[in-house]
């Protein structure tokens, strides 16, 4: 007899996957409940608006259910679905021809921290991602949020590996500048205090 949805709350992900492989839709529903927010969050961080993020996340979970027998448990279930979702987002971008990885990167954004000092410089990841160009944001999110290697990201984006690496490098530099707390010695404004 299949476990009730209530009792599924304490079941391990891998056991839920095993149940889902045999067609257990309740078990798969529990997986969606557990990891839906993370997948939607990644898509939003990649640049999707909330509605598109939800649509793509739904598609990703449906695709995951179709391919659930292929999940070998080598990584986490969440990471696996995130990769599917990230690829769906990239495919959508490419279809809409909105992603131009070969375009010149925009001028560097305002100075990190915007004049704030010390711990206040350490800003939220979501906020920091907004300072990246669309290409940098997608490349960084694919590699650090979607768990794709640079090669896999290049394949998903159908872009040269070197281009992807450049976008990741530039994106990381911007994120580091915005997110990493600066010591008072590095921060001239703090040094005056």
């Amino acid at each position, binding site marked *: 007899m299949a476990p009730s949805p209530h009792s599924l709350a304490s079941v391990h992900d891998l056991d839920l996957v095993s149940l889902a492989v045999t067609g257990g839709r309740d078990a798969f*529903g529990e997986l969606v409940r557990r990891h839906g*927010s993370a997948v939607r969050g990644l898509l939003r961080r990649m640049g999707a608006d909330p509605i598109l993020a939800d649509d793509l996340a739904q598609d990703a979970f449906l695709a995951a259910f179709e391919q659930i027998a292929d999940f070998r448990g080598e990584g986490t279930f969440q990471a696996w679905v995130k990769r599917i979702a990230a690829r769906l987002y990239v495919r959508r971008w490419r279809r809409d021809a909105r992603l131009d990885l070969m375009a010149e990167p925009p001028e560097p954004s305002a100075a990190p921290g915007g004049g704030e000092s010390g711990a206040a410089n350490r800003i939220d990841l979501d906020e920091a991602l907004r300072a990246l160009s669309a290409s940098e944001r997608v490349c960084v999110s694919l590699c650090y949020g979607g768990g794709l290697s640079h090669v896999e990201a290049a394949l998903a984006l159908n872009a040269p590996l070197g281009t992807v690496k450049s976008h990741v490098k530039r994106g990381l530099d911007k994120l580091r500048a915005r997110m990493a707390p600066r010591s008072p010695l590095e921060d001239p404004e703090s040094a005056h205090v």
Partner: protein
Amino acid sequence: MSDKTFEMDLERQFAASPILADADVFATRVTARLDRGWTFRQMLIGGLGIVGGLIGAGQLLGSGLVSRLETLGAQSDTLVKSGIASLPAARGLTTLLSMGSSMDSQVLWMSAALGAVAVGLFVTRAIREL
């Protein structure tokens, strides 16, 4: 912060996604789409099965299979009766069988066909349950 430490921190922050307020609603939507897809698939398979069955039945009828089965049935009927007649103890049974007509053989074949269909359904169901 070293490059490696920063990258690990970044991965950790990407992984630490907050639980959205409508997480349950989202899960319900996904499972509803899953159920819809499942129902649609069942209806599609069922519909295709019926159409296929009708086409198959039409082909069988058109190929004169029924008349051939009748002939075959009549032959087997004769064979069975002659076999029983050769047994001294079965004289009464032969009389009983001879009271029937070729309709008996048709019923026999129809029963066999229905039995085959029932076995097919049982096997299909068993495979789905497994």
